[in-house]
């Protein structure tokens, strides 16, 4: 609702990389739910999970926590509750 401060281009670039790798994880999860013996897909899944964690670490270092209830660390003061929210960017 409030006026947002301008976000740097790198915010959108990093976020999009995270959205891309996390989409791989969502789609592979649904696939593996019905194909649990596909070893190659599981290898891909674990690789993507690692990449996702690395990218989120990088994003959070610059732009604050992505995850709720302690799945991300907080700096001082508590910054989880800070805008922007996803529908505002």
């Amino acid at each position, binding site marked *: 609702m409030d006026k947002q401060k301008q976000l740097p281009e790198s915010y*959108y670039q990093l*976020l*999009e990389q*995270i*959205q891309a790798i*996390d*989409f791989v994880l*969502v*789609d592979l*999860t*649904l*696939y593996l*739910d*019905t*194909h649990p013996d596909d070893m190659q897909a599981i290898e891909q899944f674990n690789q993507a999970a690692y990449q996702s964690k690395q990218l989120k670490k990088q994003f959070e270092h610059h732009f604050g*926590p*992505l*995850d*709720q*209830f302690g*799945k991300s660390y907080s700096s001082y003061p508590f910054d989880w509750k800070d805008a922007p*929210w*996803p*529908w505002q960017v």
Partner: protein
Amino acid sequence: MWYYEKKLQYPVKVSTCNPRLAKYLIEQYGGADGELSAALRYLNQRYTIPDKVVGLLNDIGTEEFAHLEMIATMIYKLTKDATPQQLEEAGLGPHFVNHDHALFYHNAAGSPWTATYIQAKGDPIADLYEDIAAEEKARATYQWIIDLSDDPYLNDSLRFLREREIVHSQRFHEAVEILKDEREQKKVF
């Protein structure tokens, strides 16, 4: 339990304020085959479906909430700068007098969301066929909205959602086959 993640599943951009498109998109927010119905349908069915397919219902149900948030973001961005007059011209006058710019769970014609939109028969095959039908109806709805939309940014996000309906439908078909195989095995041994 669930954890919120501060990101959309897929980017949502709109070209311009366009309450006419928002009015149509509300169908996928609080309509019969919309994302709220989908999420609640699958997450509710998972308690009584056989173990082999609980994971799939759990995970697709969870993804539907991410889609609900994308639809909400589209509606919010398409209407946040609209004047009452613009909302009225787009057919959102009745919405405005009740909700101002707030979102609400109703369909494109203004009927509020109701639990009668979803089923839980307790019969695994009946429930999964209901889910397949719901995905195909949602896919068709996305197609009709894309046909009415002239916003290339919005259409990009809508095409993503349309494709997800297809993938979900395919996974549900596989779930039916998994349960049929299990049933056959029980007969043989």
